[in-house]
């Protein structure tokens, strides 16, 4: 840990507000606060700042840079750290206070529509407070935190093995990406690397996870425009991927398969052949579905122009994943900063400027093809050898950080291991932290009936951001 002076912290805040830096994360401990930033012009230039706050206070970043607001409110709830100057001091993850004051909305003929935390379908809990003028949404304010499970508290003092299992249950749809980010952070802290075969198998699982989620999302977005045939067909393709994952890796979602030091189980030649066949079959059957989307004007009438996210907002919040890339943001942690084995693989990062529901859907469509290509390349070039390196004993405190591209964006994991090998503190930052606030912006001026469509096109994680 390199502590910085308050002046440096404040200077960094100003650079964030100017757009010269992008916020990657902000998290606390009882006596210090950490912030990770990257240069806007060079995503590989990542800096970690630690500011000691013996009095439990620090100069707020959120007062000048909005994407830090919820992170600071969360740090206040979890660690009692007071962000000095933060205009919004309401609790975020702590729901123990009986009343929560939603921001006031003033004007004639406005009405409020409260929705959630229990929603109509099979979906995670969250509360959405709409203020509408007729059908048109004037303001949306989300209240989250219902899934707050105290993951970071459980991680304190946990072993690396338990930590990996907890990380894999931050957001179940991204279990591989989370376990990978956790493993990479632990490996960075302890200064060891997994064998090449394990690195490639991790990427294979990560791409299968991305493929399954994108297939599910494409179907579900179309279904929210009442085009159920896409959901039915895409869910068949998604199920095919999950069944193959179960057959080869022993778990449909591949939970607990990525572990610090490598992977938990190997892949035989038969499994490899099946995965190559799966990729070819998925590509063959996905193509006509996309043609169907392109030819259905009534479906595109719902997706095109709906829920437009301004590129400037995506940039200011450092929004990752399909949300950022559909609004012109050139970002993908697999390439910038990049990690093994991706520099050795050939893939494109699709960036569009549409910014609407259609754009976010189309980025997924393009990424499905890229993931299929990656799966085929990995399967063709999978190196032989061991799949796990023994975790070394360090005998001293060590810190590590990792940035991994999950299907919905970049996941940041920072951890400190104590001398006995146990976790002193671990922070897991879901991409949704920087995406949820943007959903409130894109729905403005749309009708309430288009909210499910906008929400599904974002598909933010409730659990991942609630911790």
């Amino acid at each position, binding site marked *: 840990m390199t502590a910085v002076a308050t002046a440096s912290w404040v200077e960094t805040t100003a650079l964030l507000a100017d757009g010269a830096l992008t916020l990657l994360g902000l998290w606390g401990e009882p006596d210090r606060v950490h912030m990770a930033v990257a240069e806007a012009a060079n995503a590989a230039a990542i800096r970690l700042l630690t500011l000691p706050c013996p009095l439990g206070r620090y100069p707020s970043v959120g007062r000048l840079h909005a994407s830090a607001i919820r992170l600071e409110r969360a740090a206040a709830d979890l660690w009692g750290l007071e962000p000095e100057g933060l205009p919004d001091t309401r609790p975020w*993850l702590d*729901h*123990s206070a009986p009343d929560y004051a939603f921001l006031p909305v003033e004007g004639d003929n406005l009405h409020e529509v409260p929705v959630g*935390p*229990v929603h*109509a*379908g*099979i*979906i*995670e*809990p969250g509360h959405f407070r709409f203020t509408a003028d007729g059908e048109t949404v004037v303001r949306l304010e989300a209240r989250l*935190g*219902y*899934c*707050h*499970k*105290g*993951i970071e*508290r*459980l991680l304190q003092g946990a072993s690396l093995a338990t930590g990996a*299992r*907890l990380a894999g*249950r*931050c*957001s*179940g*749809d991204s*279990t591989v990406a989370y376990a990978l980010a956790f493993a990479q952070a632990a490996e960075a802290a302890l200064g060891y690397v997994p064998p090449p075969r394990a690195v490639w198998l991790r990427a294979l699982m990560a791409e299968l996870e991305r493929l399954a989620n994108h297939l*599910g999302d494409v179907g579900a977005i179309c279904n929210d425009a009442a085009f159920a*045939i896409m959901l*039915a*067909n895409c*869910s*068949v393709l*998604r*199920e095919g991927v*999950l069944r193959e994952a*179960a057959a080869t890796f022993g778990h*449909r*979602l591949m*939970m607990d398969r990525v572990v610090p030091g490598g992977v938990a189980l190997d892949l035989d030649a038969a499994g490899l052949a099946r995965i190559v066949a799966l990729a070819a079959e998925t590509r063959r059957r996905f193509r*006509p*579905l996309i043609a*169907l989307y392109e*030819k*259905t004007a009534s479906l595109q009438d719902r997706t095109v122009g709906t829920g437009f996210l301004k590129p400037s907002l995506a940039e200011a919040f450092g929004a990752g994943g399909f949300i950022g890339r559909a609004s012109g943001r050139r970002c993908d942690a697999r390439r910038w900063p990049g990690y093994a084995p991706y520099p050795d693989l050939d893939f494109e990062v699709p960036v569009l400027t549409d910014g609407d529901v259609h754009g976010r859907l189309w980025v997924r469509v393009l990424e499905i093809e890229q993931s299929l290509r990656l799966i085929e390349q990995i399967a063709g070039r999978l190196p032989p050898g061991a799949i796990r390196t023994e975790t070394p004993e360090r005998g001293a405190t060590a810190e590590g950080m990792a940035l991994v591209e999950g299907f919905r964006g970049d996941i940041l994991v920072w951890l400190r291991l104590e001398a006995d090998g146990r976790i002193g503190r671990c922070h897991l930052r879901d991409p949704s932290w920087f995406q949820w606030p943007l959903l409130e912006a894109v729905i403005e001026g749309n009708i309430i009936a288009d909210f499910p469509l906008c929400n599904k096109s974002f598909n933010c*994680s*409730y*659990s991942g951001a*609630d911790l």
Partner: protein
Amino acid sequence: MRKTLFDSLIHPPFTERLVPVPDPELARMAAALDAGSRRRLGRSLAIRMVDSGSCNACELELNALGNPFYDLERFGLRIVASPRHADVLLVTGPVTRNMAQALLRTHEAMPAPKWVVAAGDCATCGGIFADSPACLGGAAAVLPVDMHIPGCPPTPTQLLAGLVALMSRSP
């Protein structure tokens, strides 16, 4: 569109026969439901699902129940939007402090007779989050649970087997 619809006419359906999972624990729980309950439930169940703070893996597998392979509605199982229409409250997640009130209110809003199914290890006993001060440790901590479906997450096959066991006549 016509081609896609036509394809589905000439190809056999994806839907699979339900292969019963031999699970003595499930059989015991299903048997514990008295004959009256079974008569009332008959061959149809309206299910209100509540995520009480799960990691969303259980939701993924519950959603998969609706895909053409499992097609849960053919068993008379329906996921309903309102608790007023529901016979069964299906709970996932370790019951976070922040979701406990919403979960209880949903249960209160359901008309009697009603049953509670805890799906997944978290709802069954708190799972990996059992010791967290932010969680209450499973659905049974706040509600009378009639059936547990274990798994992290339970597979669609496990979920289906559990829900079908609740009804008087298996397929």
